[in-house]
């Protein structure tokens, strides 16, 4: 049976349809569920095998990107989400979804259980100080993350954000993230060489070229770029030059395959 994916829709969510399409093309059944239906108990997270928090501007990103959606997660869905994660089901947060997972301290979850209200990491304003939409090359790094492990090909897909600059409160935490294989995706040059912070390959100034991180278990992935915007060959900016491959779809196939096995 196909695994069921829940795509959470909050006021201001906007890449929900693409996330649903990506999951479906990857072999899942996808359902976009408004947050109000979840709150009202009309739908239950436990009935699903995959949770996706898509891109957008939940609550207009008032008070910081993802902040108020994070507040919803903490106040209304903490138990359900914790249980979902503890059951090793795959979760993906893309762009605004990633920002919410970080601000809700679900990622990068450096101390478990969460012991402090202080954020350990954040996604702050891009180093260039403004929103930017451009295509980037990603290298799947973590073999622990259920979404990225085994992916050999690089992923080419767009970013579209103003607050995607991943920073840590404590510099020592970078070593921890590396050691635990929690760095899932890095921005790289088109030839796969490290970006080393160089714009535009690392488009936002993220620490250590981090484009995506996972939790310690490896089942929750958050990333700023939009692999769901590259699931067809014609979406490639240079498809008229015959360029093919590096689909973002692979990431979703990986996650769906994993979900089918649990």
């Amino acid at each position, binding site marked *: 049976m196909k695994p069921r994916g829940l795509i959470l829709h909050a*006021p*201001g*969510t*906007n*890449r929900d*349809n*693409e996330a649903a*399409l990506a999951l479906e093309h990857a072999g899942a059944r996808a359902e976009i569920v*408004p947050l*109000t*239906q979840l709150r009202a108990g009309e739908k239950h997270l436990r009935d699903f095998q995959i949770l996706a928090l898509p*891109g*957008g*501007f939940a*609550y*207009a*990103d*008032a*008070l*910081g990107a993802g*902040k*108020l959606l994070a*507040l*919803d997660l903490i*106040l209304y869905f903490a138990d359900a989400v914790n249980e979902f994660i503890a059951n090793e089901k795959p979760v993906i947060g893309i762009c605004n979804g990633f920002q919410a997972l970080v601000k809700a301290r679900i990622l990068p979850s450096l101390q478990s259980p969460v012991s402090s*209200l*202080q*954020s*350990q*990491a*954040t996604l*702050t*304003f891009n*180093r*260039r*100080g*403004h*929103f*930017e*939409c*451009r*295509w980037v090359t990603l290298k799947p790094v973590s073999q622990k993350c259920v979404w990225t492990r085994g992916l050999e090909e690089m992923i080419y897909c*767009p970013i*579209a954000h103003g607050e995607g600059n991943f*920073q*840590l*409160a404590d510099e020592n935490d970078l070593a921890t993230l590396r050691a635990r294989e929690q760095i899932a995706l890095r921005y790289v040059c088109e030839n796969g060489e490290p970006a080393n912070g160089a714009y535009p390959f690392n488009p936002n100034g993220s620490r250590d070229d981090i484009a995506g991180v996972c939790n310690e278990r490896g089942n929750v992935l958050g990333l700023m770029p*939009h692999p*769901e*915007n590259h*699931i067809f*060959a*014609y*979406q490639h*900016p*240079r*498809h*008229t*030059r015959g360029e093919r491959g590096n689909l973002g779809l692979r990431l979703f196939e990986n996650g769906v395959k994993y979900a089918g096995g649990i």
Partner: protein
Amino acid sequence: MLPDRRTRVPLLLIQTIVSPPLIHCLIVSSRVPANTRALVADAHALGLENIAQIEKHDLYFLQGALSENELRRLAKELLTDVVTQKFAWRNGVEKNDAQTIEVALRPGVTDSVAQEIVRAARALGITNVEQAATGQRFTVHGNTAQPLTPNELHLLARRLLANDVIQHYALGEIQPTFPQDARASGIVETISLTELSDDELLQLSNARRAALDLNEMRAIQNYYRSIERKATDVEFEMLAQTWSEHCVHKTFKAKIEIEDWRLETRDSISSLQSPVSVIDGILKTFLRAATEKINAPFVRSAFVDNAGIIDFDDEFEISFKVETHNHPSAIEPFGGANTGVGGVIRDVLGVSAKPIAATDVLCFGPQNLDAQNLPEGVLHPRVIRSGVVAGVQDYGNKIGIPTVSGAIYYDEDYTANPLVFCGCVGIAPKNKHPRAPQKNDRVIVLGGRTGRDGLRGATFSSMTMDAQTGEVAGASVQIGDPITEKGLIEVIVRARDENLYNAITDCGAGGLSSAVGEMASETGAEIELQNVRLKYPGLAPWEIWLSEAQERMVLAVPEKNRAPLRKLCDTYNVELTDIGAFNDSGRIVVKYAGRVVLDLENNFLHNGIPQRELKAVISEQPSVISEQSSVISEQSSVNSEQPSVISEQSPVISEQSPVSSLQSPISNLQLLAFLAHPNIASKADVIRLYDHEVQGGTVVKPLTGLMNDAPSDAVVLKPLGTKGTRGIVLSCGLNPEYGKHDAYAMALSAIDEAIRNAVAVGADPERIALLDNFCWGDPKRPETLGALVEAARGCYEGAMLFQTPFISGKDSLNNEYLGADGQRHAIPPTLLISALGIIDDVNGAVTMDLKRAGNFIYRVGIFARAENFVPPLSPETPRIYRALHQAMRAGFVRACHDLSEGGLAVSAAEMCIGGRLGVRLEIGDSEELFRETNGCLLVEVAPNDRDIFENYLKEMPRAFERIGRVTENQKLEIFCANEKLISLNVDELADAFNQSPVSNL
């Protein structure tokens, strides 16, 4: 977000609190100073060169009795990102720091962050936050020890940091303002019209900013004489809105007497037979006439709905609308552009379609204009540009609609009157848009609440602006709330699929009065204004009826469908309000608390306006005989605008030097100067601020080529959820420089440019529809109207020539600014043509980047020289485009790029940048290098396809010429009779193109 009604209760209570309410002020700062280079550069442009740095801090004002623990939680958990920010509470009265400017919103201006703070605080269990407000604090650092003078700080605040229309500022500490109950509600004034003299009628029109002329005022007077009673202010205001230029397009419907109609001296393609001296409406005579005569089978709706509609495939239809928001953007650029985008999206929702793309064409004054030369009351073009771009970005990105297509054009004449064209494309299943309210249907308002924002916008946009406009029109401008509108999209698309409504329209100019009036024009309606949900109390009935508060739609909903619609609204956090019912009375009746405050007959309201009678003079245009391109001439007229590449490298370069005597180094420099000219140079710095990828359908993107940095001719979209390989093509044509010389020729040229751009990426030239947007000066001046008539005639001829129907259009007139010195600043006649095309297979789309060394380059089209300033359009052009399209469909075109500003050399250079490949071209005459033409493109063809490609065009031997080949050597080389005119490395071209003075902040 759905504001909790209960949060409004304390607001009512505060009026009774005697002691001053407790206000806490939190200052949040970055740990690492944020990048404010752009702000400092803007300050320098104002002449404040002593400024080295401007630090920006966020201010949050919280009102209520809050414990220390609660304040700490709010600061740490809600208002500060502790990883990157620090915070401090303001203690007591701060001493006025002379180097600090604080800015806050004026009361009544939407502050959605403040609303979220109250909501989130409650969610955290902190219930005592009664009200919140936000602001900014700017700390200014000088280059020298010398502090800035108060005068300099005031200048900085007024011109750059605060917009007086929506914000107030203070040097030092600012007091926040919360919405206050300013006026008792329910007050209706009556106006006695029957006895007024002509002068008094006009005085009344002026006093209420109604923009009605004497004939119109008399018609209203006669109506009240016939029904023998006084008018209410609600009625008068509704009539003014309904009869405004904005709503009823009286100039485009006017009877026009034309002097000096010189039809016979015009081009041979003119198909209007006899000279006409009177026309009965520009719209009917030219624009609709073309559409009706062409009678294209793919047109589903033209000129009648909120947007034009064409067929997409068997299942779907595509709608397209382009609006302008010029006046609001001139006085409050962010809010003006912001609500412009929001407004046109609602037009598309108004035909029950899901918005899938946004377009934006912007016209600004020169960015380096000396602040001394700015007319009083006008914002600096830099401030306008950055505000407008930010406004477009904010709305489009947040609502999740890709901003894919557009243009930016700079000209001195747009300094006081910037133009902001906002377009929106939608998709809907066929035959799902209902258009007829039924008797007893409920009048349902969805979306945002109603406030005192945007009063009399329709009449405001119909008047000439002057230095006081910003002050008196403050209420006409608002800030949008894209998240609320996103909720509307979710609800309306689903309500449409479930057939929950019988009619729908958007609340735009004129607010509810216009929306309900229009919907009930064939039936009748009765409204209770007290049911309209308000942002704050105290609005008079006419204000509620006219308010242009954003993000509202009006639906006609059968009673039995109200509950399912409400359920849908609850799911997507959208407010639903039932304000009345449709009936078959033929009247519109509005009540306030049960008392009738408006009672008008539909027939008078909608048909009572007398047709305007205007005079147009078409005089000999000041034609400048020139072979030079429009861009060169523009450079010479705006000398300070010259790009740095010219002035630095060749201070003696002269645009006046005859093209034929150009030496090769000069040609090189001239090409580089063209590429760096603000009107040609890369717009990447703006394009990348817009999310052009959301919805996953952008197949040919605005930037293309090997390095994703070359300019596409048009964009191709494949809407998500459609079957097969079909896509849509969006492009535009705009050349106001031609409009200064010949409005008729400009129209032909703009139509050709839009179609040419669409064809270049693969659109089928037989399935293209057009939209017109006229931005003009005051039509009461006969010469101005004459040019308008000429442009409209050009639209007719162009549409007929290409057999491309107009499906929608809009005019924005009175784009004039009366300076304090009495000087009149008018825009050049500006016509934007937007094209909507169909491409059968998006996989076969063609981009403009060179693909492979060794391929041939053809010049396709009739490459004729301009006899006058404006290049001619050959009647053979449509046939050429069709042949080119056939070759493209068959797969024989590797790359294709149109010739536009800067001609062949610029076009070839851009193709080189796209492919990071060289090209070697031979031209017959050095004068051809920068010649501007209509109907011409450069086409790349593989050597093996040469014969078959030429076969497609062989019946038109003048229409194509093989002029060169793509080369491996990364050099653009153009020869004329063995003389090398251009020799430049592709890197040099790319550097010039990508480093425009504007983007290089």
